[in-house]
């Protein structure tokens, strides 16, 4: 279980990483936390000829609020979210979700941007990005562009990132007053990939839902946002019966994927459960 041979370059900073990608990106991969990539290389499922290591690029390691968005640099590790990244509902949400990502040592190395680039269908951060409508800032030798989450994820392990691109920054909208979140995940063991999970954010004003996002992850080739069901919540008072109906509708609307841990029928049951529990938690 040793990787096939590869060349290794260490980028000093953001600009250096982009320069190296321009030169070697067609055969290469960015190495950030390496928590998925290195395992895949050891199994020889991934065989990049070149690794461009960005772990020295301090200018990619940041987390800050600017112009109403939380900006997450390419080298920001999962563990940075253990404490709230910002004082409002978004920081609380991220800090709730991060504890479901693998195990403590993995969270010290793995990065937010790495998770999005890897695009595992069971990634918690991919679900967060999809549900909240994250904006991806992609940099390359040819310039910079932005890509909304809805267009970023193309399928299992597939994104809008081209070979010479660096996912340089992710922007998440800061949630204002009145927003609250619920997250529920079902996995076989603590730290395992989810078999199903749901993230819900609700804006509740004067006892009435005025805005809502419902996301479901780990049930298909990418995280799903259930916009039609979000609309059904608007203007209604949160209550268990309503949430049970929404959860049943979510189950009805998704034909989930199957693997050795969960048949499609089992995942269907789980979708109803995780959506309902995320809704209940958000309204609690």
């Amino acid at each position, binding site marked *: *279980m040793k990787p096939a041979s590869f060349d290794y370059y260490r980028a000093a900073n953001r600009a250096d990483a982009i320069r190296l990608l321009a030169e070697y990106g067609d055969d290469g991969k960015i190495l950030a936390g390496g928590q998925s990539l290195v395992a895949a290389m050891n199994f020889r499922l991934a065989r990049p000829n070149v690794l461009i290591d960005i772990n020295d690029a301090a200018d990619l390691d940041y987390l800050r609020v600017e112009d109403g968005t939380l900006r997450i640099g390419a080298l920001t590790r999962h563990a940075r979210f253990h404490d709230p990244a910002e004082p409002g509902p978004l920081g609380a949400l991220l800090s709730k979700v991060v504890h479901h990502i693998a195990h403590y040592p993995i969270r010290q190395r793995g990065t937010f941007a790495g998770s999005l680039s890897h695009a595992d269908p069971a990634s918690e951060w991919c679900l967060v990005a999809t549900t909240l409508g994250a904006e991806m800032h992609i940099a390359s030798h040819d310039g910079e562009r932005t890509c909304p989450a809805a267009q970023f994820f193309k399928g299992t392990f597939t994104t809008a990132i081209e070979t010479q691109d660096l996912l340089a920054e992710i922007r998440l909208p800061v949630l204002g007053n009145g927003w609250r979140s619920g997250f529920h995940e079902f996995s076989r063991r603590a730290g395992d990939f989810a078999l199903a999970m749901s993230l819900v954010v609700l804006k509740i004003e004067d006892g009435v839902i005025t805005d809502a996002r419902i996301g479901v992850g780990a049930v298909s080739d990418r995280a799903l946002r259930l916009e039609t069901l979000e609309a059904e919540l608007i203007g209604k008072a949160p209550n268990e019966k309503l949430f049970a109906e929404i959860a049943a509708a979510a189950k009805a609307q998704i034909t989930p994927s199957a693997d050795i841990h969960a048949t499609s029928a089992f995942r269907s049951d789980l979708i109803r459960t995780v959506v309902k529990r995320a809704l209940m938690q958000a309204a609690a």
Partner: protein
Amino acid sequence: MSWIGRSLPRYEDPSLLMGRGTYVADLARNTASVKFVRSPVAAGRIVGMELPDGELVFTAADLVDVKPIRPILHRPDYIAVDQPILARDRVMFCGQALAMVVADDQGLAEDLAEQVFADVEADDAIVNFADALADGAGAVHAHAPGNVLVEGKMRSAGLDDAFAIAAEIVSLELRSGRQSAMPLEGRGGVARYDAVSGRVTLYASVQMPHMLRTGIADTLGMPEADLRVIAPDVGGGFGQKMSLFPEYVALVWLARHLKRDLSWIEDRRENFLASAHSRDQAFSVKGAFSKDGILLGIDADLKSNVGAFSCYPVTCGVEPLMALAELPGPYKVKEYGARSRGVTTNTCMMAPYRGVARPMLTLTMERMMDVAAKRLRLDPVEIRRRNLIDTFPHRSPTGLVYDEGSYQEAMEVAVNTLDVPAFRERQAAARAAGRYLGIGFSVFSERTGYGTPAYAARGMGIVPGYEIVTCAMDPSGSVEVRIGSSPHGQGLKTALAQLIADELGIAPSKIKIISGDTDATPYGWGTFASRSMVIAGGASKLAAGKVAVRLRSIAATMMDAKPEDIELEDDLARVIGTNQSLPIPDVARAAYHQSHRFPDAGPGLQDQAIYDPAGTFSNACHACIVEVDIETGGVVIERFVVAEDAGILINPMIVDGQIHGGVAQGVANALYEELIYDETGNLLTASLADYLPPTIAEMPNIEIEHLVTLSDATITKAKGVGEGGTIGAPAAIINAICDALAPFGVEIFEIPATPQRIRDLIRASERNDHG
């Protein structure tokens, strides 16, 4: 002051827990790496092999003089099969070694392995019982049509009558998934070739170093003296490291052929594909009960999937024949009939794994008791009370003799610890609130520490069982004890030192246990079958006792007293009833350097002893409380109680550790771990992303209550305790889940009870409710 019974910290802890040990991979520096090229298909004919030119690549064609591994059982119902070191003309399972390459490092060896291409004409794989036992099924081994390699049968005369008069007949179909022992450290070997002597030293992560040497030497046709096997620190084995594997034979062959130092360090994928598997059993069992819940008879059809080959030395009879002999467990049933088959398939070889057959036997009997209790409207504890053995020695319907135990008492302790009446109230309140709690019990016997008679009775070609121990006190008064047993991480050296310390009157810290080196230890059987403390312990006690006799004789001469008046304690040889004493090191020095003074004792302080007991039964009751999430099928174990009786505890902390680890593997068996093959014989769970051992986060706190029954079955009055945790836990957990789900009428007969399987059963029950 006795050292027995003290929770001394283990001398092994720096190695086992603090990273200061020397494991096989630590010894691989400056060796060439060997990589095995493994079959990507489960069954087929090898049409050709394409090999890279000019490289060190070897196939079966290079090993023409090497014999296959052929374990023997002397039974008419056993069909011996050959396991080639590298596949010759057929492949038998996915992962079987086809070729081996040698390169300067592991990465290069893997590069080279990718250039080996085997052209295999694939056949339909025979993967499961249905494939193997179907009418007209193909044969995994051409000379074994029908695919049954071993079949044991017995039937007591009164069985039909028992069923004829039964008030209730409980029929169960049980299934256990396939499991890996999954030691933290995989297999691995480092073979060093000595150019002067032509000798090879093989460092290997194994449980039976002497047996490995015999097996390799026989297969390669070389004198055993030309091979030294050393088991250094071993990071767990649990049975998986008992057997002779082709990789070790190949490694020694390569070292002799190339006259080079070589290493093979298995990766986790290889461990899953090609080390050894276990469990994978299907039992059809009927129990005949009287109306007051007395079990009158058992009629069983037991099938064990033994994989493609038979494991050496214990053979593929190990699971089916133990199942046949031990199904009745702790219950005093009179009539018994069973047929037990070892079925061969195109899957990885089955080998012993902690518990061997008994986790499934216990699951079977304990599910039977719960189902019978429900049908007869008896309390699950009460039906057990009426059937558990209570007079000793007890003779089972299969002829096993059980020494004194505390079967009833252990169950009562568990019942009291969990306060069943209080739990039932809490359970009712929780149900009213939509939460599902359940309680489950599992009572079992654990046959341990058995010597040659038990193995001879199975007809084994190689009959293990005894242990030879040599004990020597040196002139400085410290002690070296050489054992044939070979620990794999359980703390045996500490426990043996405590036992020996009491015989010699010195501190355990002065006793060094030497194990795992065929140059330095007497021929012995290693560690398995919960035997080491009982048998190596017994032989150690006897050998140390002989040395103590010499010590007393010499001390008596030195102090002008009688040997029977000398006691050895606190590092002193003391004349009882006087204040006269000598430091034991002074006596030891005299034994060597003034031996002319001691014509009776003769020079030196060393002796040897052999112990070969018939065996002893430990017993326990596991009981647990679980909560089931009916929407997800998820199970949380709230409490887990083990009330166990292993006789005298030499080191209670080590015993508790054995129970903790065993229960963890039982939890794994009950809820988490499963090796899954697809219908083509391809293993779908070849990594730790898909094969799911429970982590510390999934483990309950384990509450242990010790009972101590003093049995004369062993000379130390200690019984084995290595496997009970694994044996008892699955049944307790599954019974608790069924109790929790009683409102849905859910009964579980298949493990692991994954969330998906539990949810499927609940969904089916909900569907039935809705018509």
